[in-house]
């Protein structure tokens, strides 16, 4: 219902232009950044470093949900279909593919898709496991209902103009019982000082203008939106980047960066369990 009246179909190469979560300002900003995606010591250093935290987290969470241990322990995600929403240069898609997952990466910026595809082709071992599409999550809804075992939206929701639409679309494309993983920034005074002022202006960890504090969302608000869409949140945990060691770590305080894992409820349970959602801040040692 959301965007169907607005769709205009061009030739078979064009994407449908649906009502979407695209924010025009965001698009221009990222286009400038696409060239230096894969420099581990460059502008995207923090994002590369974040893999050390989010890849094991995603992997362990998905493996735990299985009944049996994975048949090939070097490929724990084998057989799983995962969507990387806002894949950028492919920084997260590639490691997940190496661990066996069938990845689809979507990004609204064509340059990013091109960078990601070019980089992907350099590694023959994962070439066949990742597909990049210039699109939004919204665009996938019609043809991919209940298709994915997991959707990862890491460092994405703070750039999206309508989180509600975004999460609803994610919900539609995830299988019942499937997972959504989000990492984003809380909307607090502290997150303004550290996440925007310090990170962008003082320490230059990310380019100036990367983040708009107004778009940050607290874990409580995020959880509320997820509940509305039919998810049950199983984990919220704070994360912190140490600019001296240039490494991330899990912390109990979620006032700045945090990660959230929620599971899509099966249809019969979604009506009854919306009142029973629990939030567990689980201690994780890394």
């Amino acid at each position: 219902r959301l965007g169907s009246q607005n769709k205009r179909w061009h030739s078979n190469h064009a994407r449908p232009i649906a009502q979407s979560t695209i924010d025009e300002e965001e698009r221009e900003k990222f286009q400038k950044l696409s060239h230096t995606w894969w420099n581990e010591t460059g502008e995207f250093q923090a994002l590369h470093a974040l893999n050390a935290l989010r890849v094991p987290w995603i992997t362990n969470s998905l493996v735990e949900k299985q009944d049996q241990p994975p048949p090939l322990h070097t490929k724990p995600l084998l057989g799983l279909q995962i969507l990387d929403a806002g894949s950028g240069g492919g920084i997260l898609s590639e490691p997940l593919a190496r661990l066996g997952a069938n990845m689809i990466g979507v990004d609204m910026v064509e340059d990013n898709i091109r960078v990601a595809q070019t980089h992907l082709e350099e590694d023959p071992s994962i070439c066949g496991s990742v597909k990049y599409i210039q699109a939004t999550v919204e665009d996938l809804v019609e043809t991919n209902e209940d298709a994915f075992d997991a959707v990862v939206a890491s460092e994405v929701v703070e750039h999206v103009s309508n989180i509600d639409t975004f999460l609803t679309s994610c919900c539609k494309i995830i299988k019942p019982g499937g997972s959504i993983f989000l990492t984003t920034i809380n909307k607090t005074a502290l997150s303004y000082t550290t996440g925007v002022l310090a990170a962008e202006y003082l320490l230059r960890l990310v380019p100036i203008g990367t983040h708009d504090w107004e778009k940050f969302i607290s874990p409580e608000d995020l959880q509320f939106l997820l509940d509305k869409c039919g998810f049950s949140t199983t984990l919220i945990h704070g994360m912190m980047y140490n600019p001296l060691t240039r490494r991330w770590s899990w912390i109990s305080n979620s006032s700045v960066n945090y990660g959230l894992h929620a599971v899509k409820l099966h249809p019969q349970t979604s009506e009854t369990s919306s009142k029973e959602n629990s939030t567990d801040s689980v201690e994780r040692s890394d």
Partner: protein
Amino acid sequence: MACNLLRHCKLCNLSTRIVNSLTSRNLHSSSNEKADIVISGGGMVGTAMACALGHTDFLQDKKIILLESAPEKKDFKLSERYSNRTCAISPATVGLFQNIGAWDEILQMRCQPVKRMQVWESCSDSVITFNDEELMNDLAYIVENDVILEAIRRQLSSLSDRVEVRYQTSAKSYIIPGSTPGHDNVDQNTWVTIETDKGQKIQTKLLIGADGMNSAVRKAGKFHVFQQDYKQQAVVATLEVSGTSDNSVAWQRFLPTGPIAMLPLSSNYSCLIWTTSPTKAKYLKDLQDDNFVDAVNDAFWHERDKDSTVMSISQKYQELLNYVFSDNQVVRQLPPTVVGVDPGSRASFPLSLNHSSNYVKPRVALIGDAAHRLHPLAGQGVNLGFGDVSCLSQVLNEAVQSGSDVGSLYYLSKYETERQRAVLPVVMTIHGLHHLYNTDFSPVVLLRSLGLQSTNALQFVKNKIIQQASS
């Protein structure tokens, strides 16, 4: 007839052209072999690295290649005579060998445990002894380099499905993106290209340089290296010593010209490592066997360098120490007398300090002497190299477990930081000791004598030193 010939020729030409284009297309697509990890250099450390990677759980489906210029030794026979190149293996290295299954092989061949160490000097009577009596552990093991290499190679051959060893193959050139001239502007994350002397081209995600102190990998990667020529040579030989039932003591005496050390190989044989000036080294190598034996004994026993002022002060100081630490008396043992030298076992090699300021770059890692080469006076060099092997294999396991590219700088920097923290203090200490003992200047002699005597009296300090050297 002419027509037929012409047609035939045309057909010939056509088919040749087709064949040529096909083969050139094949050559082009298969000329660049792809690998995950290539180790350049099959010495003790390089081969140990290959073996460790072959045993690393998460690397099981990675393509690993070891390039070694020497031919494969299909039938190794343990020679009756001991080799003159040996190492003092620390307990930590023994741990690594056990993990890769090489320790049992070494024990089956031969090695000699060191239960005690005595270090003293010629300018004074100060002495320090190390023994691990309380813990009943051996301090170190003296093993010939050939034995170590053979033991590891045997293990490696049982891992042929995990690691491919290419003997008689060495790298002719390396293209390290961002460093090699002509490729300076290439993105550093591009794979490294290695061209072998056989014309094969291998593109790899990670190049490990284990090619010794004159590392070509290090040069190709434009690593900055600190070098200092010690202007000394180490003379090595296999000595026959007067029969002691228990030849398990390592002896080292510091002379102003350099330390002379005797490491046990068996009850009758010991290995000599005598660091001295290049002229003296040549002189020693040219001596007749029995004159050489006399020179060695003289070096261990003579009293000509004794500084009388220092002696009197240090004696008084020792009396004080004996009083304060009355239950920890100085026990000075006498080294065994050398009775012979294995003919043809005398050799020498130059000594220098080499330390690379970085051990890693994107897609490149240096291990062993390629990264750090020290003075042999404390027997630490090869153990540091084996420490690199343990650390790098653990780091790569972690990298792959997180789905990362094996050449990722994020994980390689972890290796570099950890190893530099372990290596730099050792390098500086040994470099310092070399300079401290390289003189007979009285005040320095006094300082080092009193220092040594004090350290010898403090068991907990000695225990710390043993612990440090064993890890």
